[in-house]
């Protein structure tokens, strides 16, 4: 009985305390508030953490806009759609941000998109590559390429550069990103004259791919297209090596995380993928500045996700400067007329459709590091 009273009292007190803290801590300041929603925990926390590191670096390089300091608000969307929607809602309604950067995955960006669209607050995503993210929306933008392009480039590279005619697919069924990408690849590869000799599936979180790999081995493909996240990619490569599946492996931007190499070890040597950024292929002055700043702070190579996080920030700041205002519609106009902005990941332009026109890099893993292969322009 007594314990219950103690617990009840504790719950009420904690409640009131939290309430007071939240209510009292409203900041009134002369700053430009920019919201950021990213997966800092959960299944794709890697991407969120990398992008946040990039945004922070960019913020240090350009901490002010229109003469005022930039205030960043980070909300963790926990790799979850409901949280993503709540995060956007919070940023807009509670923190009253003028624009939002986020998030890393397409599905979660879409979850928050309608709220921002209604509130006329622009969202600019670093790495959401699904075409549907910006479709029929005026306030949603991205600084990365879209998946139809990515799939097409992969197919072309496989067919022309690698001379592959028989492709095997191993698709993570639990992620729409993977399913979509595989579809785009398949359409283009077949159109060029190739054939899909094996189509197997897995789920995010799976650890054992031996059955799928045995089937793939039996179908004797020239190439394995593996458009999944780095966690599954690493394990697949390792088990492929163990099972003696000696097929070149091609993947997509979701593979570019340090864990791919730390977990995959020797088995990911030669692993190729379409990506956003490779520091050797960096061309712009901003890129060099960024790489130096990022690497001195983070003790690790500048890579795709952080570079795009930075680009999202830089493009947004540039748009606000051009708009000479922090009003949503005006920022929107400025974003939609971004022309040849020299970002970290390359020169990009954004049009009315919200999508970025830019080149793509092919990367591969060599000597335990991500290395630049070539650039492909649209």
């Amino acid at each position: 009985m007594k314990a219950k009273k103690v617990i009840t009292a504790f719950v009420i007190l904690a409640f009131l305390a939290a309430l007071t803290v939240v209510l009292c801590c409203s900041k009134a300041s002369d700053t430009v508030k920019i919201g950021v929603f990213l997966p800092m925990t959960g299944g794709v926390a890697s991407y969120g953490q990398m992008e946040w590191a990039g945004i922070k670096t960019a913020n240090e390089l350009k901490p002010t806009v229109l003469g005022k300091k930039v205030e960043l608000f980070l909300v963790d969307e926990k790799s979850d759609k409901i949280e993503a929607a709540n995060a956007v809602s919070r940023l807009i309604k509670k923190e009253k941000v003028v624009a939002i950067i986020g998030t890393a995955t397409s599905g979660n960006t879409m979850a928050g998109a309608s709220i921002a669209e209604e509130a006329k607050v622009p969202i600019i995503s670093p790495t959401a590559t699904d075409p549907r993210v910006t479709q029929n929306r005026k306030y949603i933008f991205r600084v990365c390429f879209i998946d139809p392009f990515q799939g097409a480039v992969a197919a072309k590279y496989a067919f022309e550069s690698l001379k592959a005619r028989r492709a095997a697919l191993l698709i993570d069924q639990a992620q729409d990103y993977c399913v979509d990408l595989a579809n785009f690849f398949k359409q283009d590869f077949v159109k060029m004259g190739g054939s899909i000799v094996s189509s197997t599936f897995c789920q995010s979180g799976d650890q054992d791919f031996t059955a799928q790999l045995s089937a793939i081995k039996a179908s004797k493909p020239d190439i394995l297209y593996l458009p999944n996240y780095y966690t599954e990619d690493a394990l697949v490569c390792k088990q492929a090596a163990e099972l003696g599946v000696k097929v070149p492996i091609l993947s997509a931007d979701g593979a570019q995380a340090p864990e791919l190499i730390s977990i995959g070890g020797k088995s990911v040597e030669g692993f190729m993928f379409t990506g956003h950024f490779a520091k050797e292929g960096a061309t712009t002055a901003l890129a060099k500045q960024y790489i130096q700043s990022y690497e001195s702070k983070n003790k690790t190579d500048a890579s795709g996700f952080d570079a795009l996080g930075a680009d999202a920030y830089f493009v947004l700041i540039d748009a606000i400067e051009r708009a000479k205002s922090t009003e949503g519609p005006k920022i929107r106009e400025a974003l939609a007329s971004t022309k040849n902005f020299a970002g970290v990941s390359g020169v990009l332009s954004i049009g009315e459709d919200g999508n970025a026109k830019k080149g793509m890099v092919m990367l591969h893993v060599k000597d335990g590091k991500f290395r630049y292969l070539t650039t492909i322009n649209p």
Partner: protein
Amino acid sequence: MGLNGAIHSDPFRRRNRFLTFVATGLLVFLLYIAHTFGTEYEIRILINCAIFIAMAVSYNFINGVTGQFSLAPNAFAAIGAYTSALLTMSPMEKQLSFIIEPIVWPLSVIHTPFLVSLIIAGMVAAFMGFLMGFPVFRVRGDYLAIVTLGFGEVVRVIANNTQSITNGPLGLKGIAHHTNLAWSWGFAIATIFFINRLIRSSYGLALKAIRYDESAAEAVGIDTFWHKMFAFIVSAFFGGIGGGLLAHLITTISPNLFTFFLTFNLLIIIVLGGLGSTTGSVIAAFVVTIGSELLRFFEEPIFIGGLHIPGIPGMRMVIFSLLLVLLMIFARQGLMGTREFSWNRAIDLMTAFRRYWESKK
């Protein structure tokens, strides 16, 4: 077996009914104020509260009142969400969404208004509960928990793999944002009213008897299987509608949305409130939903110019899990135990307090 009237005769019944009516009116008024003056963020939280209240109350019905430890509410929420979403999306929208594999007939042409879709969602969930009940109630206690948990997982896997019905991992996007304060709170009030009625009826007595001692209840002549099934189906019905409301709140659903995590949330709520107490579930739903948002504050870093207050992501869930364990060790009864709110007791309390106050003068 009647559903009318309380079991015990209550001389204050007319007064109490009047008070309930007034209280409900007050609630509606407060909601109206929130609707007019509240920010969208606050309204969203209130809607979340309402949906969780309803789902917690119906979950409490099977777990707390009937004593059957089910871990399946996330399955029913998922079924309800998908059903109602598929029904309210227009055929055109469905075609746009199902890009990998076209949706199967007749789902491709069905298009119903919101209310109808919710009711059908509830019924489909209830029907699934009916089917599940047969294997589930063959076992008891811990096994029942694991089997229901298993069903939750099976539903998720099926949702992920049946591309032509659920669109698989792509999920459904662009669901109309129908859920607002009226719908969610209307549903919550209806659920509380209905479940409360059930508990106070002779059905409720039988269910409580089953909770207390199933074998004895069987011996006294209660058909335990059908009673448990009944509670399960009712719980599934409301859980399904709750899922439908969630779908139309978030506007985009996918199989990964309805995981064991949702069940865990509901579990904390009903344990905190007191297993078996509807009032407790209502209060706890508020506390947990709002508390969840408040705790967020400790999770997020705030980055401004030079000042950086780091947050500890994930602390929220650690606190909740710890809370659950501590509750079970030290205060198993939760906030309300098995007691319910009653006007009689409340008024007695107030009268006693006033008398005490006056005697002190």
